[in-house]
């Protein structure tokens, strides 16, 4: 059985920074990229499981949003975090021909990296959903292409056995315990662990680890995105944003109650 772990790390658009260009049109160029939140949980889990499996850890990232020149700094920061946290090496696919990417390009590129570099991880860890697209499909696609077993929404990895992994999977009304044969792809939820930021020493070490930047042609791939984005609009809900700031709590309460009385929402 192999002992390596691959972690899928997305440099997502940061949903906390949403601005309009004009009349509701979303300003995608203004939004910086950051590591997708749940991928931090995947990295933390990889750090724990590396201690059990003892193999190498590599991170794989496919740049989805461009132009690549403008995204270079953010992308590096996300990948550096993976390297600092746990990865021994990082693979990054950057190709302006497939930007903006879609899940078809992304999953093919991830599989292309593994195949062309001869990497055979026994576990592939991913997040349950990216914070920009939230489609929860890239991990399943990768599993199908590789013929790995797949479990999505993993809340706990209970045990790694010789040839299988035992996990808890979160479904809407229940939690299942499952045994999946290795090699496997797991997408993890936020609840799986509490990600700790990398330490200063880890951050310093990260710059010495190998980072491979690849184009689609380097991994022998010729795919095109199939999605055509027509329109992106900021959802604007008007909120009054009245601030109540009082040294006296009594006064603050009175003010709030006055406002709510005026809104007619207290006597329901």
């Amino acid at each position, binding site marked *: 059985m192999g002992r390596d772990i691959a972690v899928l790390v997305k440099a997502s658009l940061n949903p*906390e920074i949403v601005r309009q260009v004009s009349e509701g049109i979303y300003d995608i160029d203004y939004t910086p990229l950051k590591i997708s939140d749940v991928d931090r949980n995947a990295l933390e889990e990889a750090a724990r499981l590396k201690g059990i499996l003892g193999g190498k850890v590599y991170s794989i990232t496919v740049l989805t949003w461009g132009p690549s020149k403008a995204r270079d700094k953010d992308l590096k920061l996300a990948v550096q975090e993976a390297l600092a946290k746990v990865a021994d090496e990082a693979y990054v696919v950057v190709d302006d021909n497939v930007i903006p990417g879609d899940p078809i390009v992304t999953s093919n590129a991830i599989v292309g990296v593994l195949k062309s570099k001869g990497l055979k991880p026994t576990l592939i860890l991913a997040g349950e959903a990216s914070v920009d697209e939230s489609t929860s499909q890239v991990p399943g696609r990768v599993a199908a292409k590789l013929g790995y077993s797949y479990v*999505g929404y993993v809340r706990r990895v209970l045990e790694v056995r010789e040839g299988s992994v035992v996990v808890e999977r979160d479904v809407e009304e229940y939690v299942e315990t499952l045994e999946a044969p290795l090699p496997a792809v797991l997408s993890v939820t936020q609840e799986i662990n509490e990600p700790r930021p990398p330490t200063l020493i880890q951050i310093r070490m990260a710059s010495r680890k190998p980072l491979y930047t690849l184009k689609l042609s380097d991994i022998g791939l010729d795919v095109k995105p199939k999605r055509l984005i027509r329109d992106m609009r900021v959802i604007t809900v008007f909120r009054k*944003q009245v601030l109540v700031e009082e040294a006296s709590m009594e006064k603050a309460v009175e003010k709030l109650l006055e406002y709510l009385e005026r809104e007619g929402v207290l006597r329901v």
Partner: protein
Amino acid sequence: MKALVISQRPSDAGELVALAKGFGEPVILAFQESASKVDEVAAYGCRVYRVRSDRPEALYKAAFSLYESLNPKIIVGPSTKNVKDATALLAGSLDIPMVTEVVELSDGGSVLTYKRGFMSERVTMKAEVPYPVIALVNPKIVEPAEKAGRGEVIDLNVGELKVNIVGVRAKELSGVKLEEAEVVIGVGRGFKSKEDLKLAFELAKILNAQVGGTRPIAADLKWLPEDAWIGISGKKITPKLYIAVGVSGAPQHMSGVSGSKVIVAVNKDKSAPIFKQADYGVVADLYKFLPILTSKLREKFPGRA
């Protein structure tokens, strides 16, 4: 041309059949609850293939074999975890587009045109993808189809599965319908212990409110039942009044409360993002503010508690 409908619950079948009709002749694949209550699903008059399982892998294998034999233009289904996990495998092995949480869809000739949330639902995206395509939709985006006779039911056998089930545990649920409440108090990590939530419950009593919370409060800390978390991966609420207490205002939480008429935020950090997304923001320590708010309301509504 066929349109394959994946039904997980009898309650989703009517809407999905209605949607599928816009693209082709609906054929249903009944899974999980819809497989055990197949008569309710067959009542729409379409042929029903049944896979008696609740495993995504079984649904994947069944959908794959139906895809090969029926050649559908579109596969529609609900945006649930089991269906997403199954169709992600299908989309990957066929390399076809898959879109989820779709709120609008229409036939654009050689492409599917659709609308869905983006950026943790702060932005809407309109896009198109070529057929064949998998489209998982949100509930209640169309009126359900009329029932029409009884369709034929055919059982599918999917053979051995790779992933084995060891056990299932029901989640602790409150059964409270936050979606229907007129007033909701939302609790966040500003509360320091489960016991302290009684401050929110006391306020709720006076306001005839229900108590919900952020995902970490319910799913991580388990201070509230698992059906009481509000947001992109939890409940969407539309109360007259939403009072968020000790909640920072992350986009994944706020997307669940955007339909509220009035939003109040109580947070001790003046720079908390929630203040930009609230009608009334109170900069205060919840431990000092809530007891006084509750006691003032008690004076105002002496009959209530």
